[in-house]
């Protein structure tokens, strides 16, 4: 059996609309796309949920980022210390 390479660590900040099951959606995509949540903090900020995630995984983080951006409840995904990605949705409220 080939040894697994050490997993890379990433920090992601995610802003979501506080719909039912918003956190479950986020966590499910992270798991299905091959990452493990090492640390997670969430707070309500105005009409949004701000979520800070420390993730570990061997797959390209950009692939996860683009999948998270597809979630209808996700407003912003920022990959810390890397290129910023912003998705603006629900601009009409």
């Amino acid at each position: 059996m080939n040894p697994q390479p050490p997993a890379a660590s990433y920090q992601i900040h995610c802003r979501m609309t506080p719909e039912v099951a918003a956190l479950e959606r986020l966590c499910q995509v992270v798991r299905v796309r091959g990452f493990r949540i090492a640390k997670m903090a969430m707070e309500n900020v105005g009409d949004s949920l701000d979520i800070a995630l420390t993730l570990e995984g061997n797959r390209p983080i950009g692939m996860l980022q683009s999948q998270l951006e597809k979630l209808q409840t996700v407003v912003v995904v920022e990959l810390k210390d890397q290129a910023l990605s912003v998705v603006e949705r629900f601009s009409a409220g």
Partner: protein
Amino acid sequence: MNGAQHILEAFHRHHIDTVFGYPGGCIMPLYDALVDDAVVEHVLCRHEQACALAADGYARASGRTGVCIATSGPGATNLITGVANAHRDSVPMVVITGQVPSALIGTDAFQETDMLGMALGIVKHSYLVEQADELPGVLEEAFKLASEGRPGPVWIDIPKDILLAEVGPAPAVHGTPGVDEVVDASRVMAMLKASQRPLLYSGGGISLAHAEDAFRAFTEASGLPGVTTLKGLGNAGKRAPNDLGMLGMHGSRAANRAVAECDLLLVIGARLDDRATGKLEAFAPSARTIHIDADAAEFNKLRPADLTLMGDLTTILRALTGEVQTSPLAISDWQQTCRHWHTTGGFHAADNDDPYAPIHGPAFIRQLSRITADDTVIACDVGQHQMWVAQYYDFDHPRHHLTSGGLGTMGFGLPAAIGAQFANRASTVINVTGDGSFMMNAQELATIRRYQLPVKIIILDNQCLGMVRQQQELFYNNRESQIDLDDNPDFLTMAKAFDIHALHINRSDQVRRGIETLLAYQGPMLLHVAIAREENVWPIVKPGAGNTDMIDETHRPRSNKEYVA
């Protein structure tokens, strides 16, 4: 107006005139409202899975949003396979389920299941309506989400008390003014111009984007040789001179060779699925890649692209067509090479001159293709027959080929054919199925009978799970395990039990007459076609191997059959 009546109002606003469903406890308020509705036709299937698959078939055949309805608990869980099927193939669908009353959620109430949680991974989006006044806005958003961008299923779970509650008026809908998309096609053109051997690789995204006409205009103007995915069959039309057909695990040698030897791959509306690419490292090894899609998440997911273009495919294709018309590509040598490969390495099923010979699956499908009209809709199931249809049936339009591509759902074909027949009552709709797949939703014969649908059913019966048997033969040392179906029911008697006419054929000389009889019959009919148990789908690429490592009949192992079970 109560919540249930709001749902019907939303159907009216979105021109939904056909829905597929099954009633039960928590969705009863909606069924009560349906009694007074003169616009929406509710199709009662005999299993909720079939409701979802029929809505899927309706959407694929019509290009409109399919709608399915079920009650809470088992009704909703039975929908899951059909909704997952729509999700994997990006089919626009709105799913409406009743939920136990709000006050009972979380109490393990009768027929309570957490559908929002269960369905998270198989929907584009989902809602649990918690406040009655949310419902009109949720319905509007759901129909919009289901069909815009990359389509997909949107699930709305509605507690029974909200279906009964008085709800305020629906929000005013203001169309967002369209913004003309400006496409910079110059970089695509520069790469096409620099290429000696460019190849077009198109998928199901073409019809999902309603971009069929723009795609054909581009293929004709560019003259690009093209390969298609399973879901893209028909994109170029059946008479396109440069179309090489399906690539991949069961693709043609010509298509896979063109991919292997091209120096530029122009991927449009496809996601580089593993069944199409085989081993990624061996896929189009010499090619640069341009990827055009409506979903940015598909870019660089499996293969890095040299250039990506996201947006409306019709707009992009029109821009590209304008460019190639102004500055035609000089690829005549490459076109000739591809045509030669297609002549020598395409799919050619020989007719059997021996009238008493057993029926050969591929030859049967080729004959079916010759006899049927161009606008015939074929709803496949999953297995060997599905691949023979993909290989030997010439589709003139992608909406004529309904197939479960991503999920590979056995039992898809019969309910999908029902949905397609409701989408267009005048169409000839044929469910081509196998004996394994047919039995997975055979109860829908009752739906066909109830609505007098003239759906034609062709069962290619090899008395086993043929695709599994084939892979056990080739990749598991011929150790057969749990594939025998030689105790199938008598399908003719079964059809008769549903008052459906049926015919059996088993010899080559009966094929043409059998198909003509089927097509000429007014009303539903089943054609039972006995084929040999040992027939395989050729060629085949071993899962995980490169597409150039195709196995054909010459590689078939000698009979060393070992019956394990």
